[in-house]
């Protein structure tokens, strides 16, 4: 019953007066951001990173995690009420959620989304608690070659599950890896690619990149075309679902939870893939698939459960391997490093209070979300009517202050502006930016492990295939690539993502 003891430790940390307060602030801010259009969780977390500097690391990470799942939750509110996904992961919720709202069942849709998310969050928290320790122990046995191969697998999986062109996504990863190498090389002390600028000797921070590409780039895109938002529902009533609704949604919620939990662990997939596959599955299983897209309650319940479960389980690779599975997790790694915590399998043993505190706080956060959201729904509806022309100058100012405060460096603000241009250009060229951020975080780690592996093997590259762990991981990578490149799957994948858009 080590698990129980560990969870007890975790809840002790998570429920401590200040931590529960920061968890609350986190989910509140996250929901707020999720409801508002035009700013995603990546830019929000980057923006609020400096605000956590005064906090102890545990509270800071609890708050940042709260922002993340709060945002994925708030996104569904917008999806149901305005037919605009606040976050990408709630794209499919629009399909049936908005239809339910049009038929006067907005309250029911919101309540089911909340209940499903809470159930999924609770299950996923338990899964994290159960699977993280053995995985972390396994990871402690990893040598540099194994780590390198693991990162290769992670990056390939991230590309495979991303949408759009495969080869462009790979190129974006490589570009990210290269940008990650800017700054002083730890082994030789040589400053690389700083173009003579002393401000770049420490490299480019994750803050300016995240803020520029995901924050500024997004604002400019939104301003291109005047946004029109049609709030269909002025007041939400009838929150309580009936017994019949509960009966209808019990299995979809369960299926969504399982699917989401499994997909969340995979790099790159996370909530987006989880919610999308859950919707497809429900449609396939339904007796009458034609109801979908016309307000089927299962079409809200299952994807919402899946995206929340996936948001939770995507912490597993982060906490056990120190490898991010999506851009938000990449930022969490950045946050850990800023707070002086080296991400990796040693966190669990070296900082058990942080490890278990974060896990327990996920459950607390989910509970807070339910308690918070159903009564506050009126306030969120009001926020939805806020006009974008007042919103984006505020976001812009917060971003400026945030990016400056990370290092008190004016250069970071300029860099963020530069990455804004770059991010905007990526959008025009139809290049997905998420793989770039993953590559950026993994760049230095990959180089370090490659160096160590080859140093130990005296330059023999065969070390990557002779070590069993490394070989297995590489075989998996090749298999994954082969499957995606197979003509049949390739066609399916294209179809799948077309339907998503």
């Amino acid at each position: 019953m080590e698990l129980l003891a560990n969870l007890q430790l975790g809840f002790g940390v998570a429920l401590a007066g200040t931590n529960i307060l920061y968890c609350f602030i986190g989910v509140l801010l996250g929901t707020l951001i999720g409801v508002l259009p035009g700013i995603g969780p990546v830019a929000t977390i980057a923006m609020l990173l400096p605000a956590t500097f005064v906090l102890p690391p545990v509270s800071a990470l609890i708050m940042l995690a709260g922002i993340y799942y709060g945002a994925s939750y708030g996104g569904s509110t917008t999806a149901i009420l305005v037919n605009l996904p606040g976050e990408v992961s709630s794209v499919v919720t629009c399909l049936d959620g908005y239809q339910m709202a049009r038929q006067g069942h907005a309250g029911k849709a919101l309540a089911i989304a909340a209940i499903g998310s809470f159930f999924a969050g609770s299950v996923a928290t338990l899964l994290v608690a159960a699977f993280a320790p053995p995985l972390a122990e396994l990871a402690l046995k990893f040598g540099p070659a194994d780590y390198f191969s693991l990162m290769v697998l992670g990056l390939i999986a991230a590309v495979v599950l991303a949408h759009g062109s495969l080869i462009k996504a790979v190129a974006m990863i490589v570009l990210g890896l290269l940008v990650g190498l800017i700054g002083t090389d730890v082994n030789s002390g040589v400053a690389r690619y700083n173009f003579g600028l002393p401000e770049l000797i420490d490299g480019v921070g994750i803050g300016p990149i995240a803020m520029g590409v995901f924050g500024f780039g997004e604002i400019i895109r939104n301003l291109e075309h005047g946004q029109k938002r049609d709030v269909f529902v002025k007041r939400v009533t009838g929150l309580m679902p009936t017994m019949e609704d509960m009966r209808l949604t019990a299995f979809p919620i369960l299926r969504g939870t399982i699917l989401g939990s499994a997909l969340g662990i995979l790099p790159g997939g996370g909530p987006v893939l989880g919610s999308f596959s859950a919707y497809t599955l429900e449609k396939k299983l339904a007796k009458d698939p034609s109801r979908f897209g016309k307000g089927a309650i299962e079409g809200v319940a299952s994807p919402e459960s899946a995206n929340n479960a996936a948001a939770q389980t995507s912490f597993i690779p982060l906490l056990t391997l120190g490898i991010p599975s999506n851009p938000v997790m990449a930022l969490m790694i950045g946050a850990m490093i800023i707070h002086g915590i080296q991400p990796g399998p040693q966190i669990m043993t070296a900082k058990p209070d942080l490890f278990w505190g974060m896990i327990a706080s996920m459950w607390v956060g989910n509970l807070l979300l339910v308690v918070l959201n159903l009564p506050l729904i009126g306030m969120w509806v009001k926020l939805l009517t806020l006009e974008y022309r007042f919103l984006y100058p505020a976001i812009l100012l917060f971003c400026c202050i945030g990016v400056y405060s990370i290092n008190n460096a004016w250069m970071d603000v300029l860099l963020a502006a530069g990455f804004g241009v770059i991010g905007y250009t990526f959008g025009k060229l139809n290049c997905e930016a998420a793989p770039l951020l993953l590559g950026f975080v993994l760049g230095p780690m990959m180089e370090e492990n490659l160096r160590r592996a080859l140093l130990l093997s005296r330059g023999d590259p065969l070390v990557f295939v002779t070590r069993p762990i490394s070989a297995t991981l590489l075989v998996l990578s090749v298999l994954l690539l082969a499957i995606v490149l197979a003509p049949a799957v390739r066609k399916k994948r294209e179809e799948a993502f077309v339907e998503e858009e």
Partner: protein
Amino acid sequence: MKHLIKNPQDFWAGVMFLVIGLVFAGVAVTYKIGTAARMGPGYFPMVLGGILALLGLAIVVSAMREKNAGPAVDKFHWGPLFWVLMPVVVFGILLKILGMIVMGLFVVIVSSIASHEFRWRPVLLLAIGLVIFCSLAFVAGLKLPIPLCPSFSVFEQIAACRV
């Protein structure tokens, strides 16, 4: 030339990757490369830069094939780009000298010009409200070391360095 490019988005993305890859690889060669067993600072970036250039080339070639035809590159909207990022750059450069009160008003007011419906009254109110909020929340509350008021000591420091 133009009729050869069947997928302009991919084509230009490929060109971008190709150029960036070559630049990274080219600069990497000026660092010590070393051997696989003892990698110098140039080894990994050189390999990666080469891979990026090759990927870029492959994307360029595939963009010229009929079956990969795709949409044209959407027009760049220089207006919003300028009005959103210019105040950010000015904020970065002048924050230490002019302080957050002045720069905050500047960012909010100037960036509002990018909107299709700019009106002075609400924008001014928004700017003042946001600056008050930021001063209270970030500087007073979170104690972030951001100067609030204009300070000319920076000039004095620069002058001191010169002397």
